[in-house]
């Protein structure tokens, strides 16, 4: 049933999804558009553009997913739709 609480639950879930999708586009694509320029910055021998594709974005993906699981769970609990 589409009760008001269900609607608000789904709106929050959808917003979280779009935030995640935005971060995904940023770390998956946007930042690598500037790989050539970022490569001029070198940290510990790593050119930054190369580092982001080899490790940086991957770390971001892993952290994002753990954060997402927690965040979505708290939305579930707040709207009383979490599993028992």
């Amino acid at each position: 049933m589409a009760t008001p609480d269900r609607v608000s639950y789904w709106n929050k879930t959808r917003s979280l999804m779009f935030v995640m999708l935005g971060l995904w586009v940023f770390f998956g694509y946007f930042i690598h558009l500037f790989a050539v320029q970022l490569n001029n910055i070198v940290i510990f021998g790593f050119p930054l553009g190369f580092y982001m594709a080899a490790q940086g974005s991957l770390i971001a993906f892993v952290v994002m997913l753990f954060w997402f699981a927690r965040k979505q769970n708290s939305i579930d609990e707040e709207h009383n739709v979490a599993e028992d």
Partner: protein
Amino acid sequence: MANTTATTAGGGDFTSNLGRIYGIYTGGFIAFIILMAIISAMGVPNRIIGYLFVAFTITIYAVIGILSRTMQVGEYYVAGRRVPAIYNGMATGADWMSGASFVGMAGTLYLLGYDGLAFVLGWTGGYVLVAILVAPYLRKFGAYTVPDFLSARYGGNLARFIGVIVLFSCSFTYVVAQIYATGIISARFLGLDFNVAVYVGLAGILVCSMLGGMRAVTWTQVAQYIVLIIAYLIPAIWMSTVKTGVPIPQLMQGQALANITALETAQNIATHHITPFVHGGYNALNYFLLILCLMVGTASLPHVLMRYFTTPSVREARVSVAWSLLFIFILYFTAPAYAAFAKWTMLDLVASGLTPENISEKAGWMMRWAAADGTLVQICGKAATDAAAIAAACAEKGVTALSFADINLNADMIVLATPEMAGMPYVISGLVAAGGLAAALSTADGLLLAIANALSHDIYYKMIDQNAPTARRLVVSRVLLVLVAIAAAYVASTKPGDILAMVSWAFSLAAAGLFPALVLGVWWKRTNSAGAVAGMIAGFGICLYYLLGTRYGAVGFYEMWSGLSAAPADAVAKYAELKTAWASAAPDAQAAAWVALDKQAQTIANWWGVKNLSAAAFGLPAGFLVMIVVSRLTREPSLAMQEFIEELRIPRGKQMMEEKTV
């Protein structure tokens, strides 16, 4: 806290003791490696060490497979839905990382430098889509297979049937590649004939999956993950320690990259390892499209999605995706370091003044690999089988001092040869072989199960005989599993030439055929069955047309679409020249002329220069577009269906598809 699902007494004991069981197993495996090192030092021959490694690990998988045998449908299809998130993550890691990831990834990065990172990004970032768009909702629905969900959401067997076709076409080519990889590894490390090795690999796969279905595959995959990750990390750590004194390859990669750049500059190598968008035809467009296809493909491949059907709850399914990515990440962020250290070692070797005369003394391992297979190591353009062959080839080209470009290493041998390259003892080579086998076997298990389940559950049970008793369903499932496995092994034993390309195709096919239907099915209530069916056919069809057209019908494809081709003028001129040559060739020379023409056509048959690998770049948007337009033009889904979607979006409540499980 999270794991509150009621479990049967036996299962509960097992799941609560998982940490201890796999802890003992890991310790035992490490003890086994040390034992092998000791007996190797005592003079036991290398071949015996190789046999022991493979025999020991396969025996363990077989024991787990046999202990996990089951006659319950729920256990067979979804492991009783009580796999804790973290172990499901490990199993997904092994399921996901194929023989190609283990054996080929670092080699690809070695050859393509920055541009190879498209694979690293594409094969990790897709899990974000899995977690936010698909997996939790499929878990709530409670499907046994991906087509199960399509059928329920899009009302009927047509959507189910198309789903099965897409599933079969992407999974079968993939499983052939895995069996091929097990054959290659067994042949090289055990010295078996390739044809025999393929069937040995097949036996290893079947013993894990046949008796226990998903339950057995899950617990063997966890064991296989542990073997493969240890086998991947040890050589990388070793090499980092030898080269830099610090045993953290991922960190010391920075130093390796700095040295690579310095050596490349000193040796006048124009294309630097770290320079983006310049290697192997990957311009920025193809780089980003490949990332997109691999990511979306990840979120659509049925053998991956079905792993999330096994968690106890929706919440655990989400956490499990995060764990999966963490375990996959451990291998994928080591691969670029592996590649950098291998490249550094090779550049150093060249810088030490390598000549055709001293190469056999400085790098004898190259000749051993070339002797096994002439395509693996080529120096001065010829197979580097021995010092005389190298000297002859180089004298012919007038090369007196070898440069980096003169030495051509095959991507697939980099990881397997690294132990020798860095002078490690043979026991490490045996370990790497066991790891490569674990990677290939675990992926093959998952894929075979996905195919056999779709055929037995979707085609046989749901479409042919809905009254089939449980026992018969499980028998049918096992028979199909064996048949599909034998068919795949047969195809692998013919050594199909395009095997690696086909693996990449699987991602595009899955992305274009399944992704729009899965995502819109959850996120857009207005999607109806007409739209879904039309969209799946359009997406899959266009993707398949582009794949096959540009590869197997390149001349016709180019003739039809020459206006869209991004080919440079000189390539087009060469094509025109070859075409005239073919048209005017004598009857007996026509076949050869056609081959030359077709080869040239393959380089120019494209739409806007998009590589064949990224075919979903067209199929995916087409699928979405057709699905949306057709859904809008036809009637909206029934009220009952809209209620169904409401229910799907809420974690609370019973899973929606209930099966008779007795």
